[in-house]
């Protein structure tokens, strides 16, 4: 009887978890950082556009209209039309989801793989650490885009392979960061305490180390989104990624390049779109890093 009353009382006065409180604090700091907020709002804007944009645009991204080729920006075609008479604005809107999809999935793949490698490396140390980190060094030694290029040329050019390629060149970055954080957290006394209780490595890693190294992973993932999008567009630009007529920004840019002198709008707008989205992720990532750093005052 007494026990149940205690239980209900607890449910009522349950204090906020440190995660929640921490998130509130981070949000407060983030709100003060104007550039980060601009980045965040832009990202939100792009996400919304990618979801509802395709429904709102009046044109079909693949509908060709040869009577209206290479039209300059006007009231009907805000960003003009391309060499097949397709509306560039519509194509860019439709491309948003592709761009974000490539960014998200490649960063997700890369961060998961990198985190696993980093934690195993940092937690077990010694030979495993040496082998894993030296192989990460090998990957890091290649310039990112060159590595992605090599992977895509081996696997063949397609959207999926671009994601894999971009993910692979993100792995070492995550692995290094996670390894460093793991080394720091593993030395803390509470990890020793659960080890002294007889906890398995699996439990220590997933219950005690991983939750406490999430912030650098999240920051890196945000910043990495920008790099991933840029790299994916670069690959498409080179003709190794999304194949036409897919309205991928890099691919549109690549086609627009042929008309750069006479019809600069064709290359300008997809280029601008890439710049803005990359900038947005960079700004937001930088702000997030400052906000998650407990040393900066909110």
């Amino acid at each position, binding site marked *: 009887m007494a*026990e149940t009353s205690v239980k209900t009382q607890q449910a009522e006065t349950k204090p906020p*978890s440190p995660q929640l409180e921490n998130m509130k604090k981070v949000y407060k700091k983030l709100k003060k950082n104007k550039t980060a907020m601009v980045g965040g709002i832009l990202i939100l804007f792009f996400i919304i556009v990618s979801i509802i944009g395709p429904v709102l645009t009046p044109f079909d991204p693949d509908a060709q209209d040869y009577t209206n080729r290479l039209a300059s920006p006007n009231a009907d075609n805000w960003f003009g039309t391309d060499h097949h008479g397709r509306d560039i604005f519509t194509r860019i809107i439709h491309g948003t989801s592709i761009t974000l999809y490539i960014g998200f999935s490649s960063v997700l793949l890369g961060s998961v793989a990198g985190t696993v490698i980093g934690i195993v490396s940092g937690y077990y140390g010694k030979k495993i650490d040496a082998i894993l980190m030296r192989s990460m060094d090998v990957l890091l030694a290649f310039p990112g885009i060159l590595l992605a290029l090599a992977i895509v040329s081996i696997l063949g050019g397609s959207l999926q392979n671009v994601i894999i390629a971009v993910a692979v060149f993100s792995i070492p970055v995550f692995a290094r960061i996670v390894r460093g954080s793991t080394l720091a957290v593993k030395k803390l006394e509470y990890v*020793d305490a*659960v080890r002294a*209780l*007889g906890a398995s490595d699996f439990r220590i890693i997933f219950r005690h180390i991983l939750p406490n190294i999430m912030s650098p992973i999240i920051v890196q993932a945000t910043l990495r989104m920008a790099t991933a999008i840029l790299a994916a567009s670069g690959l498409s630009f080179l003709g190794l990624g999304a194949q036409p007529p897919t309205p991928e920004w890099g691919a549109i840019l690549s086609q627009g390049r042929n008309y750069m002198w006479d019809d600069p709008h064709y290359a300008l707008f997809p280029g601008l779109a890439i710049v803005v989205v990359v900038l947005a992720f960079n700004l937001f990532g930088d702000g997030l890093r400052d906000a998650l750093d407990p040393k900066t005052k909110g």
Partner: protein
Amino acid sequence: MTTELLQVHNLKQYFPIKGGIFGRKINDVKAVDDITFAINEGETLSIVGESGCGKSTTGRAILRLDEPTSGEVTFDGEDLLSLNKKEMQKKRKDLQIIFQDPYASINPRQTVRQVLNEAMEIQNVLPKEERYDRMIELLETVGLGPDKLDRFPHEFSGGQRQRIGIARALAVDPKMIVCDESVSALDVSVQAQVLNLLQKLQKDLNLTYLFISHDLGVVRHISDRVLVMYLGKIVEIADKKSLFDNPKHPYTKTLLSAIPVPDPNAKKEQIVLKGDVPSPIDPPTGCRFHTRCPFATDRCKEEVPELRQNENLMGEQHQAACHYIEEIESGEMQPKY
């Protein structure tokens, strides 16, 4: 009839120093160098010594939180160092540790409930349904109310956190607890509370403590026997009374002379050693204390003194590692200051 619960034989803990291009081992930090002692069931053995003498390392090596370089640790008749990982994880139920820093020893993302539940879950102490009652009981034992169960570590003071640490250790019904500087980070009034709690628990649950501390006042309060370490070696071991009233090793004497006396007019001879503690990478030959000992002779530089007992001068369980116990005691040797 006392039985020895834990026996430590020739325990060595060397930490390799790596360097050079290929990370070869250059040298070792000889943190604990060949120590042997035993703890009786139900008693409190304290290890004292200054920073870096190997007291914490000894505790961690016994628990295999760091794998010892060599030696034997027999707990309850079983050699811990020969157990494989799985067996050791099971055995950890009987051997718990309470840490120094109450702010670092609890995962900041877990509630007290999760902390205690995890301890019981790992060792499968109780079926799920009975765990709640046990948690409330544990909190009560360490002097915390049941309303604290769903709180997070950051909502507690240092003393309260240390109590949670104690509750966590108790959750698996251990036989022995290593208290690694467990009260050093607390302020004095809270220290006293936690010490009294530890003593009460010892009586109620028949616990055995290995109490690691640099605070001689605390050690004097809680110990049955005291072990003094210097640079990875045992210099003296004795029951509390003999050690504090009748220290035999020059180092122990120095250490005890540093205890502050709560009387501003008290005249007390204070022995101040010259120099710093030598490096444990290249410890001095012979007696490790010879570089700072006021009685040191050439013999001390060459011959390593063993722990020994002089029946006329010392109690039954009193041993010290000095060549000149008798000479110093009789006044035959005078300190060279």
